[in-house]
């Protein structure tokens, strides 16, 4: 499940070249889906157009689909390169033992998988020569998702967002992410 973050009136971060985060995440999401399909991995987008979608609705839609992986795509400043996140729990208490997971910490039961997956994706992107950081952050709606979940934030340079360059730069990133997912899907017991 690929979530192009933001949308509609929720524009996200302001990027160079007057681009808005919500538009760039949708472009990246479409390209990532194409790259995954080429590698035989089925992928769905959580939104296909510029629409408002609440954080609760995003988590609910993802949980209803029972995906083997949820990826939230972001784009933001400052810096350059890619930041890969796994969800940070804001409390040391885990809902792992609970029969019905708590909404605010639904992720805690699979946070180890999320962390391993974020690490693998970050390593794969680094192999492509892209500056990549591995971080943890308390992000919505990742903490409400029952499946392993990661967020990928692209910090594009102004040159990356020139009309002729955006597709190329975005394709380089999504290709590395798609390769990582294709390589790792077996190791987390996922269906293709």
């Amino acid at each position: 499940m690929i979530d192009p973050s933001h949308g509609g009136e929720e524009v996200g971060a302001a990027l160079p070249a007057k681009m808005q985060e919500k538009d760039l995440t949708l472009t990246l999401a479409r390209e990532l889906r194409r790259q995954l399909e080429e590698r035989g991995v089925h992928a769905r987008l959580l939104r296909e157009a510029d629409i408002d979608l609440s954080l609760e609705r995003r988590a609910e839609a993802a949980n209803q689909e029972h995906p083997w992986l949820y990826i939230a795509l972001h784009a933001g400043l400052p810096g350059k390169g890619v930041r890969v996140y796994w969800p940070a729990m804001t409390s040391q208490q885990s809902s792992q033992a609970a029969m019905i997971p708590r909404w605010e910490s639904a992720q805690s039961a699979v946070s180890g998988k999320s962390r391993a997956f974020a690490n693998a994706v970050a390593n794969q992107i680094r192999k492509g020569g892209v500056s990549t950081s591995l971080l943890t952050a308390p992000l919505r709606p990742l903490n409400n998702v029952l499946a392993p979940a990661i967020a990928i934030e692209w910090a594009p340079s102004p040159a990356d967002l020139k009309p002729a360059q955006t597709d190329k730069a975005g394709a380089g990133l999504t290709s590395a992410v798609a390769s990582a997912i294709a390589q790792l899907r077996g190791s987390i017991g996922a269906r293709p």
Partner: protein
Amino acid sequence: MIPRHFQITLALLLLAILISGVYLVHLKRREEALNTAAAPARVMAPPAGKHEHIRVLLAYDDDLALRWRDADVLLPNERRARAKEVLRAVLAQYLQSPSPHPLGYGADIKEVYLLDDKTLVVDANAQFAAGHPSGIVLEQLTLTSLIETLAANVPDIAKVKFLVDGQERETLAGHVDLTPFYETAVVHEMAREFE
């Protein structure tokens, strides 16, 4: 002998000048009152306390790092008021120019509440969130910097929650979760990624 109609005209003119004068004074006073109301709130000194040398954890956007810095702050003795002034000391660093981590103009802490000895609720003003730059790492640096500085300077605070203008808010500026009670021990681990 001045004709009667000239006398009446002169009297009317004098009366008009008098009324205009009174009205101008009224307008001037109203403008002064409006200007006073629109002016930014003055920073009030804490009711009692002393200058203390404290450490604040500041965010630096240039290299996405958190670094401890020294600050001299007039701090009250009472814990709740002390927590508020500690947080404002961090915001003051971000609101100066040039800023290591710019926030929106007018960002401030409205009030701080102690739910119990270990749990603090911070009520930031609307500008704090409305003017905050959107982005995962920028929002995370702000929260981590504030909570870590609180934990370092207000003993025994274990949980911190943020409100904005008295209301719960889903995210700070579209990314980082603002709904939970953050455990300071967990935030301490997060901060290590940036130190």
